[in-house]
């Protein structure tokens, strides 16, 4: 217990002193995960909107597929991206393996189904509710889409935050495609795994503490946005 308390005190010391290694790892983690989430949101929100508001052959299959992919195991994604980006793989010539770009690609694959599915669900519910009203006021399809996107914006931001939470906390895929190389591809989760295996609990706990704070902050923001977007009627 004493060793644990010592490690915890050392972790707080690292955070308080603004340890350079710690800061570098945090910044790389944020860069990789924020990039992945932005790319996934740029693809996922329009795609989710399209699936929610339109009817086309194979739509149901697409919905089932994206729902299933929400639970995609990160290690499997890492392995797939590894195979594709390895020297003998189809994109080996790009030399992306063991770079932050490879980590971003893996996280986009992990986050995209979450954003697509949550966007579709949100916009579909809104569309069912608004459809007759919007048709009644003779809104064009573009005006309908704009109205639904705007009114669902808080829930869409929540979907993006959920995706970010998944990305920042993920370890399996980034470990495989990033290689956990110091100063190059070491992020919070891979650093925690490494330092814990080495017995350096101070750095591992410090990073874990910051990861927990990020996770809690995301939950608080998501809860606040949901509450703000859904005021209660007075009667």
């Amino acid at each position, binding site marked *: 217990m004493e060793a644990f308390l010592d490690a915890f005190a050392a972790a707080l010391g690292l955070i308080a002193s603004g340890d350079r290694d710690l800061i570098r790892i945090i910044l790389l983690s944020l860069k990789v995960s924020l990039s992945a989430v932005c790319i996934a949101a740029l693809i996922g929100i329009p795609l989710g909107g399209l699936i929610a508001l339109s009817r086309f052959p194979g739509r149901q299959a697409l919905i089932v597929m994206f729902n299933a992919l929400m639970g995609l195991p990160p290690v499997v994604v890492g392995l797939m991206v590894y195979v594709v980006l390895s020297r003998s793989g189809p994109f080996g010539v790009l030399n992306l393996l063991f770079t932050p770009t490879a980590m971003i690609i893996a996280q986009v694959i992990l986050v995209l189904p979450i954003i697509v599915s949550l966007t579709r669900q949100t916009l579909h519910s809104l569309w069912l509710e*608004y459809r*007759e009203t919007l048709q*009644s*006021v*003779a809104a064009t399809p573009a005006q309908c889409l704009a109205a639904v996107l705007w*009114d669902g914006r808080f829930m869409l931001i929540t979907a993006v935050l959920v995706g970010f939470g998944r990305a920042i906390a993920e370890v399996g895929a980034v470990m495989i495609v990033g290689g956990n190389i110091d100063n190059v591809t070491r992020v919070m989760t891979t650093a925690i795994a490494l330092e814990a295996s080495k017995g350096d609990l101070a750095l591992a706990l410090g990073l874990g503490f910051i990861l927990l704070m990020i996770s809690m902050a995301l939950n608080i923001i998501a809860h606040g946005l949901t509450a703000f977007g859904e005021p*209660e*009627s*007075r*009667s």
Partner: protein
Amino acid sequence: MKTFPTSDPAIPSPEPGILPLELIGAGLIRDGKRVLKDLNCRIEDGAGGQIADRPAKTFIIGPNGAGKTLFLKLCHGLIQPDEGEVRWHGPAANDGARIKQRQAMVFQRPVLLRRTAWENINFVLKIRGVARAERADRCADLLQQTGLGRHASTQARALSFGEQQRLALARALALDPEILFLDEPTASLDPASAHLVEDLIDQAVASGMKIVMSSHDLGQAKRLADEVIFIHRGRIKERAAAPTFCNRPENDLARDFLEGKLLWWRRRSVYEDGEEQCC
């Protein structure tokens, strides 16, 4: 403050109208059952209630499940008939976009955007291409007129049910429609709110709007209606001037309905009607 455009039936509207509306053998089939059957009626321009034989307020009366809401949605174009047709005969009847723009509907359960009361009205004005400066004035006027002036910046969904219904009406009136469909707009409202809605309806009629409104409130029909269309199990059973219908209905079912004797087994919902199987 001026929200509703004043109209004189002697002065023709500068915009070509879409009325009269005619239902020709219109019917609707849902789950293999005819829920609306052989509807034939013509709905004329109300002329601001100034001409005796041109009813400005047509009430669709009938028990729950009779098909009143479907009738309104069919007229409004939200659903298409499976049999017969719904045809507009006015000068602008060949302009599909104009037909959509010259009508509005208020639903029994108001569906409001997740925005403030002001933004809900502004939204429809923007859709209609009204200039920003004019939009602000009209939003303020309509909110004032519907008693929601102090709620302009309140989230619409945070309003009480009665206020939400008034806001939905204000939003429909903002479109300045030639014909306004109202689906039991005062159901679930307290008497004061219902009275306010009735006043707004009268003002809309005075401005030249035609009102087609469903209700099963006979007292309201007596107070407001110019004519009544009585629907039972998806069919029009009687159409008459309101005083005639209320005092001397010709149809047995209408008489039973007025006397509160329309029994459950004669009042089956259009969806439960097993005798009218189709296909």
